[in-house]
């Protein structure tokens, strides 16, 4: 999968994953305490933040695997820094990344418009919710409560990860530091067309 990647793209992905791994960890701690007071639904509002790196990396690098690998690395960094959910977090990272990757794969890694990025956030939401349903034991809750959780998570994935991710990358593109990465080439290509 990585044969077609340039080394600088791999390192960029790792570095971004590390930066976001730290941000994820901050939100995880905040979310943990918040959840103590209002229960597991506390995470749902901010869940989109945990999908953002897969969308950012895919939007910049535009190669198969960018979403799932970056999300997995970010989760691994959270584990390495000594988080609290533990090694199982790597598995949830993998699953969240797969959710976003599935959407990009469905477009053939060709379209990176805002709706596609938002859909990728929704994909992550659905995949991670299925996993959380099993592991968090959500099945003991009332179905209405579970549906409410799912709805909030989908909205959060679309808005925070999809819109937020695009906002961050577009800001970064404007600084000019992404020259030499597929996103800059694609934008130039659009301009020429």
């Amino acid at each position, binding site marked *: 999968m*990585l044969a077609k*990647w*340039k*080394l*600088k793209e*791999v*390192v*960029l*992905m*790792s*570095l*971004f*994953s*590390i*930066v976001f791994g*730290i*941000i994820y960890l901050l939100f995880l701690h905040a979310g*943990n*305490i918040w*959840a*103590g*007071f*209002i*229960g*597991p639904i*506390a995470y749902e509002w901010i869940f989109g933040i945990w999908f953002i790196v897969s969308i950012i990396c895919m939007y910049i690098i535009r190669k198969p695997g960018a979403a799932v*690998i970056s999300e997995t*690395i970010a989760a*691994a*960094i959270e*584990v*390495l*820094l*000594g*988080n*609290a*959910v*533990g*090694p*199982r*977090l*790597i*598995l949830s990272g993998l699953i969240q990344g797969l959710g976003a990757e599935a959407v990009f794969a469905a477009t053939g890694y060709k379209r990176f418009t805002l709706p596609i990025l938002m859909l990728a956030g929704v994909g992550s939401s659905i995949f991670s919710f299925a996993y959380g349903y*099993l*592991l*968090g*034991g959500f*099945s*003991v*809750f*009332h*179905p209405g*409560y579970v549906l409410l959780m799912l709805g909030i998570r989908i909205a959060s994935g679309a808005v925070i990860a999809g819109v937020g991710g695009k906002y*961050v990358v577009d*800001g*970064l593109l404007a*600084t000019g*530091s*992404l020259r*030499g990465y597929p996103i800059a080439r694609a934008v130039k290509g659009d301009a020429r067309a």
Partner: protein
Amino acid sequence: MKQALHDMNPSIKFLVTTICMLTLAFFFNPWTPLICWVGVILLQLCFSSINWKKWFLFMIPFVIMSFGYFWTTIVFAEERTGAIVWSVFHYDITKAQLDHALSLSFRVLAFAGLSLLFAFTTDPTKFILSLMQQLKLSPKIAYSILVGYQFLPVMKEEFVHIQQAHRLRGAVRDRNVLVRLWNLRRILLPMLAGAVRKAERSAFAMEARGFTGEKRTEFYQVISVGKNDMILSSLFFLIIVAGCSSANWI
């Protein structure tokens, strides 16, 4: 003896703790997670030399979180059958509800115990090297994660510098924590731009020194698998089996 868990092969430790957690997810009685939690703590008492003060500090948020699970499960539980064991403000709590609630909150504690065990006894660099050597992680990814990991202290410094630069230009630090979190986005972009440049520079440096990212069979620092790993893994599984069969003997 006191170093056994620290010396355990990180990949195997990772697999074993993950299997333990996945198994726990299938049990909805309060005893299974409780026994596993106690077992994991005993394991750490016997085979590791961790900082217990730090351990307690890390455990506090989980205790709060497990309390959150406890009361939400009681309020929003689906199953309301069985004998009534407790009555608060005309609200009846049944045996099934209480069992589920206790189970979910002990599960949070058991998960926390397992993950703290992993985090406190594993050296990050060794973990990545072991992932590459035992679990066939691509060297391209493994080494680029290690590069990124080395950049952490630099980035921490950079974060402070950008913050100071903002303050020099008159950005005021807000009192509200939420507003402060939201304002972090102004620091994020310069940090990421810096990260892009660092990534490019280190990738060039790696390539210049002949790094191709091909799979290899020989390593400078070898992480091995030994008897110690087998013994500890079986201890982990013993705890899980004891916990899972608890429904039969309690």
